[in-house]
């Protein structure tokens, strides 16, 4: 394969077979990008909360709003999935759970746990 003859390319994402590990992995990347955009928001909230009682109260008021609460559910999913999938990757680095069956089981466990924890958090807001 070279520039004049690049070889076969099959990039139809809707038809490529996606094993569970692929879902966990792409969600790990997606959640990471989401969290990246959340960094300035995090610092802004910290800043506001530490300026004085008015800032602190303003944040409490913000989190009473439904839009902010919905946003927080998305952020919590991103954080939890990224953390759990990240721990799975670290363990895989140490060759723990590296067999195919174990890897598929841990991928499923991570993906499902993140959703469940997010749902529990979401329900706690109601």
């Amino acid at each position, binding site marked *: 394969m070279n520039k004049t003859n690049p070889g076969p390319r099959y990039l139809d994402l809707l038809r490529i077979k996606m094993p569970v590990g692929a879902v966990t992995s792409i969600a790990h990347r997606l959640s*990471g990008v989401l969290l990246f955009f959340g960094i300035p928001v995090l610092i802004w909230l910290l800043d506001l909360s530490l300026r004085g009682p008015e*800032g602190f109260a303003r944040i409490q008021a913000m989190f009473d709003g439904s839009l902010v609460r919905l946003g927080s559910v998305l952020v919590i999913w991103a954080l939890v999935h990224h953390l759990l999938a990240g721990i799975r990757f670290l363990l895989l680095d140490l060759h723990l759970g590296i067999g195919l069956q174990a890897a598929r089981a841990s991928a499923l466990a991570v993906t499902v746990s993140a959703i469940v924890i997010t749902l529990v958090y979401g329900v706690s807001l109601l």
Partner: protein
Amino acid sequence: MSAGSRGLGAWLVQRFSAVYLAFFVVYFAVSIAICKPGDFETWHHWIMTPAMNIAMSLFFIALAAHAWVGVRDVVIDYVHSTALRVGLLAIIGAALLACLLWAGRVLWVS
């Protein structure tokens, strides 16, 4: 092959920062869940104790490093135009540095 193009340095930074971030986030979440700082005084006092102030500063340093390696990987994977890729990485790098300095101000400058 140069040390940078082997990717080992970035890989180590990403892994070690990840471990610290994981511990800090879990510690922080559990602390909030148990103590529930409901007013400014309690919250401010907790964050500004020397240990927490330093641990949180380390958190933001680790976060900037970790985010840089991660987002750089994403840009390298998907942005194939050299000019666009380099420009984007420069902007993202500057933004992360700015955020780090901002966090530093929040935690250290009254």
